[in-house]
């Protein structure tokens, strides 16, 4: 798979999953001792501590599987954990050691995918499944865990409504039964041991049942329906019509999650309102019908799990909130992602923050997330919009929230700029640009403080790109109003300083903002009234195409909810539409795409310097970046179908490659750049040549997801780290392969005792035990210590410090990373000339003198005439496009 182009580079790169895996797909469970909570993360079980919410350990199956569907502790054998995979492989772990005790393949029908897994007791389990011959109706049956045999398959046909199927196992007078709901008005109750004993309960007034829960030991069952009611049923559950019922109604939207407390005195429910409600059941007569709330959870509630002391609430923002019995949130198990469906349709954000060693990306609605790449943890959720989430209503189940459309970080890490946008097609669009400064004095509290907020910075049109100058003193923003604005940090007025608009530049008539936003031009037509009669909403009783309840149940990976809403009312005019934007390293030039025209502007005079166009760049540009270091005179740009490099000295295309770039990024500290294509090829190159330094094809299957964004991480001496964001908000890292020593702990492949003798051996030998060392919890600590070390070394007298050649290269690079941008233009000029006076000569010098040879320019006084002649020669001789070389190398 790996195609290595540069043979000199011996590094082997590999793709690693970094973060953003879904931890909310399945219901978590508490361990029997109540100390930890086990969470299914695809094919692994993560165990988190309840108090600290830290990942304690992971449990894996022996054979590779395609994801677990359920885990459970049997009631009378609670020292073992049972888990079942999608393909019906039951794995049993011992809880204290995490060793795999046994694997059993359930003999399920071919091609069946298990949907739910519930333990009847330690020997038997109840599963539902669909697929294969069971496409229309589901397969539900009990199996033996010991042998994997089918014990009993039940007959009543239950319609397969995939994400809505929920199963609960309960007791009815010493008889086990399974209650199954599938999002219709009927609830199926099936005795487990008696195949023929079953009942169907139709909900009152035919409202659809969305969730079901049973108590572990008492004859109690609870259901919720689309009206928002929770009904608790007691008595003979095969004859629900005559059983005792208790109705709790606070929710107005379908409660998706339902759970009894351990003792059965309380019922927890939660759903689309993002509120956890704790109901007191009738059995506690002295405080009957009392309820308490945990409101404003950061996402929709998917699952609720309880034990005696804690509640775990699984939310759609890819986090699990742990609350105590008093309904106070005590911690959050957070994972990257959890981006709302609207934000998924937007251009994602992925920026590497060098100071914190963290990635900045989209978080839950209105938030940005800082994810530490060193400790692999979500450090902060930064509230950008500062608004409450808009509550869904019956007529508006998925309201449009204000989303962050764009964000950028200044190269020195000092400033963050964000743009937020909301356009529902009825109101005037809201759009705000916010500048945040890094919070230096109090690192623990919040990483960014708001400095300036500009309302309607682009007249209510969406901002599409943001870029900072290298020193962070200037910022440019481009919007759909076909203008870009230059912002300057101005601290003349007060101490803190604010960002002010220097100027707005436009390539066309400059009236595009009125043309691009229909809402600014047209008469408004009043929209239909939301009906007060809630019974009219069809989703409450019937399941139709595009069922909203289904979408809510699948909220965390839904793509189709609000596709068109963010662009409501806008009529695009791609002729001069703006996209990418960049500022040169010295801050004197701005490059901006206007349609297929790449324009260059003078930053200070705000005048158009030149506009570049090429037939291959039609119809529309996407991204643009200036080269860094010795490639500062190159401009790299991408369109939907090609990657091109312009030389700013000759204003010609240096080279051009036909591929489908998805994202382009450049390394701050070197001249390297990376491009990711739509079939997940990664090319790392320098603007100097079309021959990539490293290129790897199809690093992951494009059918699973396409990389939409990339960012360079901290690079080492010879290798680079590239972070990639897939369209399902999972973060990958593309880095040199490491040896096994680098790993934190090596996981033994089989934990099962092999022989009697081996049980006698100590599990760990004293000599092998590593001394415990405090773990750096926050990357900022690393940063602090490193900067202290740097200052230590730089303060020390020269005769005390080790020779420079002995200092490790990363340290030197750390120092190099803090260099101030050169501000006088002469050095820049010299740099360019240095490039011009041909790299092949320089190469020879370097080969002669080794890597520490002085640079040629330092010894050589520039002969301007010669350089000029050489430059002219070069421009004349160079072919404009090196198509031969490029096509062969990129394999096209």
């Amino acid at each position, binding site marked *: 798979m790996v195609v290595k182009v540069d043979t000199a580079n011996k590094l082997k790169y590999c793709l690693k999953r970094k973060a953003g895996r879904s931890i909310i797909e399945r219901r978590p469970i508490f361990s029997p001792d109540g100390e930890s909570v086990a969470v299914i993360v695809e094919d692994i079980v993560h165990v988190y501590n309840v108090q600290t919410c830290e990942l304690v350990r992971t449990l894996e199956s022996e054979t590779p599987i395609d994801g677990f569907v359920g885990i459970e502790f049997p009631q009378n054998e609670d020292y073992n954990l049972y888990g079942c995979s999608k393909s019906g492989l039951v794995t049993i772990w011992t809880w204290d050691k995490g060793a795999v005790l046994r694997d059993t393949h359930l003999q399920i029908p071919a091609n069946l995918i298990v949907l739910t897994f519930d333990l009847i007791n330690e020997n038997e389990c109840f599963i539902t499944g669909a697929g294969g011959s069971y496409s229309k109706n589901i397969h539900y049956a009990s199996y033996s865990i010991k042998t994997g045999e089918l014990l009993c398959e039940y007959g009543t046909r239950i319609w397969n409504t995939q994400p809505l199927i929920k199963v609960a196992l309960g007791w009815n007078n010493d008889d086990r039964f399974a209650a199954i709901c599938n999002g219709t008005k009927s609830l199926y109750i099936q005795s487990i041991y008696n195949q023929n004993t079953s009942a169907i309960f139709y909900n009152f007034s035919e409202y659809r049942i969305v969730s079901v829960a049973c108590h572990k030991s008492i004859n109690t069952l609870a259901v919720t329906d689309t009206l928002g009611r929770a009904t608790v049923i007691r008595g003979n559950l095969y004859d629900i019509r005559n059983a005792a019922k208790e109705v709790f109604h606070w929710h107005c939207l379908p409660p998706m999650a339902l759970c009894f407390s351990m003792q059965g005195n309380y019922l927890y429910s939660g759903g689309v309102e993002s509120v956890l409600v704790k109901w007191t059941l009738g059995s506690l007569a002295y405080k009957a019908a009392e309820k308490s709330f945990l409101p404003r959870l950061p996402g929709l509630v998917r699952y609720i799990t309880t034990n005696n002391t804690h509640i775990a609430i699984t939310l759609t923002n890819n986090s699990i909130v742990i609350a105590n019995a008093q309904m106070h949130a005590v911690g959050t198990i957070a994972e990257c992602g959890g981006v709302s469906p609207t934000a998924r349709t937007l251009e994602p954000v992925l920026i590497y923050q060098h100071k914190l060693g963290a990635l900045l990306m989209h978080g839950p609605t209105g938030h940005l*997330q800082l994810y530490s790449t060193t400790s692999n943890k979500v*450090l902060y959720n930064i509230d950008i919009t500062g608004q409450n989430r808009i509550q869904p209503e019956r007529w508006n189940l998925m*309201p449009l929230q204000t989303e962050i459309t764009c964000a950028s970080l200044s190269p020195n890490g000092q400033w963050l700029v964000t743009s937020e946008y909301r356009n529902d097609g009825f109101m005037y669009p809201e759009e*705000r640009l916010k500048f945040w400064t890094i919070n230096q004095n109090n690192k623990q509290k919040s*990483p960014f403080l*708001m400095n300036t907020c500009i309302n309607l910075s682009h007249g209510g049109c969406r901002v599409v790109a943001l870029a900072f100058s290298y020193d962070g003193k200037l910022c440019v923003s481009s919007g759909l109003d076909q203008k870009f604005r230059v912002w300057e940090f101005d601290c003349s007025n007060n101490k803190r300083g*604010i960002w002010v608009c220097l100027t707005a530049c436009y390539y066309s008539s400059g009236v595009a903002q009125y043309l691009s936003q229909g809402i600014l031009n047209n008469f408004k037509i009043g929209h239909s009234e*939301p009906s007060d009669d809630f019974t009219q909403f069809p989703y409450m009783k019937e399941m139709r195409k595009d069922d909203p309840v289904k979408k809510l149940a699948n909220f965390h990976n839904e793509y189709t909810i609000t596709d068109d809403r963010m662009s409501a009312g806008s009529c695009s005019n791609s002729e001069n539409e703006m996209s990418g934007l960049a500022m040169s390293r010295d801050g004197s030039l701005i490059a901006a795409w206007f349609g297929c025209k790449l324009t260059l502007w003078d930053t200070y005079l705000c005048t158009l310097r030149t506009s570049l166009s090429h037939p291959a760049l039609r119809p529309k540009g996407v991204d643009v970046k200036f080269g860094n270091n010795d490639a500062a005179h190159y401009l790299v740009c991408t369109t939907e179908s090609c990657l091109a490099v312009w030389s700013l000295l000759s204003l010609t295309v240096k080279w051009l490659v036909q591929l489908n770039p998805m994202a382009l990024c450049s390394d701050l500290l070197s001249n390297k750049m990376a491009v990711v294509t739509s079939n997940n090829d990664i090319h790392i190159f320098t603007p100097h040549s079309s021959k990539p330094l490293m290129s790897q094809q199809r690093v992951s299957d494009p059918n699973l997801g396409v990389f939409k964004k990339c960012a360079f991480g901290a690079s080492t001496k010879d290798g680079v780290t590239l972070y990639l964001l897939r369209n399902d908000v999972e973060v990958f890292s593309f880095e040199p392969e490491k040896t096994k020593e680098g790993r934190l702990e090596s996981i033994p492949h089989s934990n099962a005792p092999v022989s009697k003798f081996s049980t006698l051996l100590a599990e760990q030998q004293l000599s092998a035990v590593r001394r415990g060392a405090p773990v750096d919890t926050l990357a900022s600590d690393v940063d602090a210590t490193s900067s202290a070390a740097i200052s230590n070394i730089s303060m020390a007298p020269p005769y005390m410090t080790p020779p420079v050649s002995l200092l490790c290269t990363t340290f030197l690079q750390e120092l190099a990373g803090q260099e101030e941008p050169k501000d006088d233009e002469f050095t820049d000029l010299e740099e360019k000339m240095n490039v011009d006076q041909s790299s092949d000569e320089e190469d020879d010098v370097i080969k002669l003198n080794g890597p520490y040879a002085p640079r040629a320019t330092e010894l050589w006084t520039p002969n301007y005439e010669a350089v000029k002649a050489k430059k002219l020669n070069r421009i004349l001789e160079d072919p404009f496009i090196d198509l031969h070389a490029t096509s062969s190398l990129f394999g096209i």
Partner: protein
Amino acid sequence: MAQVSFPFKKTNKAIFKKPASVLTHDIIYWKKLGLPVLVKEFGAIDYLDFSPVEPYYFAATCSVRVQVYDPVTKVVAKNISKFVEAAYGGCFRADGRLLVAGSEEAAVKLFDVQSKNVLRVFTGHTGPVHRTFFTKDQLKIISYSDDKSVGLWDISTEERIANFNEHTDYIRAGAASPISPDIILSGSYDHTVKLYDCRSNETIMTVNHGSPVESTLFLPSGGIFISAGGTEIKVWDIFNGGKLLSNISQHHKTVTTLRLASNNSRLMSASLDRHVKIYDVSTFKVVHNIDFPNAILSMAISEHDDILTVGMIDGIISIRKREEPVRQSEKRKNLLKFIPDHTSQTKADTVEVANEVKINKKQKLPDCDVLIRKMQFSKALTVVLRPYISVKYPEKTTAVIQELLRREVLRVAIENLEEKFIGLLLKFLISKLGETRFTRTIVDATNVFIDIFEGKINMFSPENLYLYKCLFKRVESEIKVCKSIAELEGAINLIMAGAQVSNTDVYELNDTIAPSTKAQKDIVIDV
């Protein structure tokens, strides 16, 4: 139960806040002019002029002498008193070595500043000469006299080259074109401003200012001139046949002097109403105002805006010197200034920490937020519609309306309003429709309002019906205003394009002029 883990956020009203007393660049810039030093002279200060070369001496013409002051020490450096009667309009040449002044005795005299000698005496006028200037080539002198004539004199031969007798009243203002040595301007008390071409000796253009003209000025492009008189300042376009581009009416008494400052990007006007006002040349908007203790007759400002001198009717000259000299950034000298958008500053918001639960003190939410949290939208609306809030803090009301709009519940909230509050809502909509910071939200809210009550207008009480009609009219007038503003914007853009020319000419003036015979005869004994 108050939840501390996931706090309810306050409705953000900051975006609708008035950009209250924003400290603009101009205010800070002009505030840096230090405290005034007052100098008493005899008689009203008729004219002030700065020498264009360092050390920027300035000449103050008052009663029978021209005093040349040192702006640093504020004492008289030179005293030119070769006048029998009152002197008027002492003006420096571009190299600061010569000075010309008119006088009550109808003669125009040219002095050497260094030696205070009279070099030339131009006789021929029959009335007092109030203003005198050098032409662009610095070889000729223009004089404006009360005998209703404009004279053009050659310095070297001391002869009158041209004479224009077209005005019907005193001529008290004029200017020489900055782009041509042959074009001059005169403003008279007969309300007209005339433009002459000295090559053909004819009047090219006449415009009517509407009141006696006290001062005139060319913009450096030479295509636009400005006249002041009465309480108004008017901007005229020469190339457009004398089209009136703008009419600035900011003073309430006669405007006496006009000057350009800040590298010709600011216009200054002084008036008898004791104010000096500073305008942006691109927009002609007032950017700053300086108050003085008495009616101002004359004003001058030095290069780089370092010293501002103002002469008052009671003979006092106020000298204000900048504390620190301005550093002009070269790179943005010619940049067209754009007005920045409303930039509001808000305090940093708190940031939620993912893995930590903050137990902060219980903060009391405002009433309207509590009601929004409890989903009592109608009540929340009534709270903010109360006159106290809606008049004093309209941004709060608007922010709540916007929040209700976002939640798509404004309809519900308005439907459940009592009659009285519907009236209040209408009043709020009427009064705030025109304020730009609110307009967008108000228009949205009005749309919802009309959607609801479209068919039920007749059920309104008479007061509300009246208010509804008012709203209707208000919308119409607002549309009209918008249209005229759009037209005006287009017109102003034209001026802005014209005002971007720099003038840096260098003259070779190494001539040494010996006193003429007429000048030698003219002996005035200083009393």
